[in-house]
């Protein structure tokens, strides 16, 4: 069946059949496996790999139908890196054996994934990674240090970018692997952050042996594979619909309505500025989804993360000022290992501090502006000196 002949109604009826065959109140993992095998996990994936080759936009019909039936959730908050980054990369660059091995337990949430990309010396300049992987017979021996690794302490697998040819220019000497997080030599240490908690980890890799069948893509072509991952990370398609005053502004408007004594003219104008910007961002997301549904995706998606970071930082900053005395009081500095980044149940101070990461993680706002300028507006690239020199000769 060709991709465009699917209709939402058909997928809804397939979802109903699934629920009829596999009751939603049984073993959650069994249900999720059955859903994967029915092709209703991610309908745009191929048949046999959790999908039906249907348009991606129709996934929401399945999700709505199954949510209404009370079906178990595959917990995307915990498996986001696997779903959003590892899976599309494995689909595009993995062997059939790798696809069969990894995608099903990834999607059900049975196996959690993390991402071993960033290093102390390779953040926004990701192609500067220095973690070495050296061929040894039918395996690779990996040594180096990674950082900012969410969920490394829970993860069974990681996607890993490592340098395999220091004599090649930096973009050409890398290879992409799946890293076994249970292998000897993998050490995970919590990295405590500005909020006091540790969402992230440092990961130390010391002579970690990875069999060659964990390599994703050809040796030396890691950058092309990583670009698939990064593009999927930044497929910000406007997210899910939110109601007016939904999202980061929600606690701020609630505080404003509940605390009349702190209202001033200056705070009010700033509040309304942010209300306007939040509503503009919401409408932009709605327009983006309409474009996608009409089959004419625009480049607006690349603005979403940039806007979200700016707005969340300003909103959470104003929230502290509106709260006044309460804005001086934090809830808890003890080291925690949160599994999700839900921040609505934490103090406003936590939201303020955590938001500072929004313009750094997943591509800094500066990098995103550069991407918009070059890829959307077509402006010329900055002159570079690091693309033709062997990696080992670059100043560090």
């Amino acid at each position, binding site marked *: 069946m060709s991709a465009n002949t699917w209709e939402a109604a058909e997928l809804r009826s397939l979802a109903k059949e699934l629920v009829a065959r596999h009751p939603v109140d049984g073993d959650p993992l069994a249900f999720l496996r059955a859903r994967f095998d029915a092709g209703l996990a991610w309908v745009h994936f191929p048949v046999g790999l959790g999908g039906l080759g249907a348009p991606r936009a129709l996934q929401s019909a399945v999700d709505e139908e199954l949510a209404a039936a009370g079906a178990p959730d595959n917990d995307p908050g915990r498996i986001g890196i696997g779903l959003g980054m590892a899976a599309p990369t494995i689909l595009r660059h993995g062997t059939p054996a790798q696809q069969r091995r990894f995608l099903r337990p990834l999607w059900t949430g049975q196996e959690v994934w993390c991402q071993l990309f960033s290093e102390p010396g390779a953040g926004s300049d990701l192609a500067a990674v220095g973690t070495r992987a050296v061929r040894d017979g039918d395996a690779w021996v990996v040594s180096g240090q990674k950082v900012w690794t969410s969920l490394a302490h829970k993860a069974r697998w990681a996607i890993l970018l490592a340098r395999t040819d220091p004599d090649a220019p930096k973009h050409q000497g890398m290879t992409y692997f799946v890293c076994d997080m249970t292998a000897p030599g993998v050490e995970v240490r919590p990295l405590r952050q500005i909020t006091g908690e540790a969402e992230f980890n440092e990961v130390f890799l010391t002579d970690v042996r990875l069999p060659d069948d964990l390599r994703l893509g050809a040796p030396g072509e890691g950058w092309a594979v990583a670009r698939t991952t990064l593009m999927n990370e930044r497929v910000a398609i406007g997210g899910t619909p939110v109601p007016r005053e939904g999202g980061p502004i929600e606690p701020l408007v609630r505080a404003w309505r509940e605390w009349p004594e702190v209202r001033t003219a200056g705070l009010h104008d700033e509040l*309304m500025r942010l209300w306007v910007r939040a509503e503009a961002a919401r409408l932009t997301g709605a327009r983006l989804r309409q474009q996608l549904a009409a089959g004419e995706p625009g480049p607006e998606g690349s603005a979403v993360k940039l806007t979200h970071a700016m707005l969340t930082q300003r909103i959470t900053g104003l929230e502290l000022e509106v709260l006044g005395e309460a804005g001086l009081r934090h809830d808890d500095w003890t080291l925690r290992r949160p599994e999700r980044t839900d921040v609505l149940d934490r103090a406003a101070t936590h939201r303020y501090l955590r938001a500072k990461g929004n313009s750094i993680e997943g591509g800094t706002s500066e990098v995103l502006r550069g991407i918009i300028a070059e890829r959307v507006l077509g402006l010329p690239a900055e002159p570079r000196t690091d693309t033709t020199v062997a990696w080992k000769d670059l100043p560090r």
Partner: protein
Amino acid sequence: MTAMPDLLYDESEEDLRASLRALLSDVDRWPAALARIDGGEPYDAKLWRVLAGEMGLAGLLVPEGHGGAGAGHRVAALVLEELGRAVAPVPYLGSAVVATTALLTCGATDLLRPLAEGDAVAALAVPFSRSPYDRALYDRVAERDGGLHGTITSVADALPADILLVPAADGLWAVDAEAPGVTRTPVVSLDATRQLCDITLAGASGQRIAGAETGRVAVRAALTTGAALLASEQLGVASWCLETTVAYVKERRQFGRPVGSFQAVKHRLADVWVDVTQARAVARYAAASAGEPGGEAEVAAALAQAHCAPVAVHAAEECVQLHGGIGFTWEYPAHLYLKRAKAAAIAFGTPDRHRAALGQLVDLPAA
């Protein structure tokens, strides 16, 4: 809350956009526009005849039974977007949107038909800076001894008008702009492509088309709709400024490379692009919500002016700056866009007034 309206453009809107852009992309446009400004005749009467007469665009908001096209606000907004891209000197906003909405609200259908058919131009005689929330709109003109007396300053699109719609304490009046006792004095205006004038009424006779209450409702509706659709004009201004500046910095070389390869320039233009992208969603929402019952039209209009007015000003300011010296010259059109954008940010109320009004409308009180 109502369901999210369609924020895209449909095929017929894109067709109309293409024909408008072809019409408005005359190569001699800028010298001609500057010559009209220097000659004190800013309005382009020939262009207006094509738009209103031949293309029938003045009647988009008017039902077919009254000589219009019954096409609605979304299409009128598209027209304004293209007129904004060209800073076209025609009274579309004042006549086909604001005055037309006032007449529609009053049910003054005999006056609507000539407007819709392109045979007459009308203007609502209130200062261009007045917001829909202003109360002091009705105390400038009073009827005395069978004639209207008073002065209204800084009125937009009234110079080329045949009919003036004059708010007074006792209602809304239609006055023949050429009638005895009516004086229109051109004002040297920041936005010379939409020149303002002062209107003096000294015993002018008119026709009362609405009583006090209906008149107030009509004026508020007219200004709200004007604010909502002005956002599309602002979107057009901002789009032109962004596209023209991007093209310029790709070509212009300094320090041995294109100016547009400098990060300091790229990041500023990326920010303008994000703003314009969002302004498009907001302007489409305002157009889709215009005329909707239940207060959403007012929320959408206030949102649109609070967001799109600063976006257009910012885009025009960046256009002047990133063009360098040429952006500061009279011959280059960047200044026409800056003047249009800044004047439009004051029109129908400044962004801060709209933010304050929004606070009331969405239950976020100021104090």
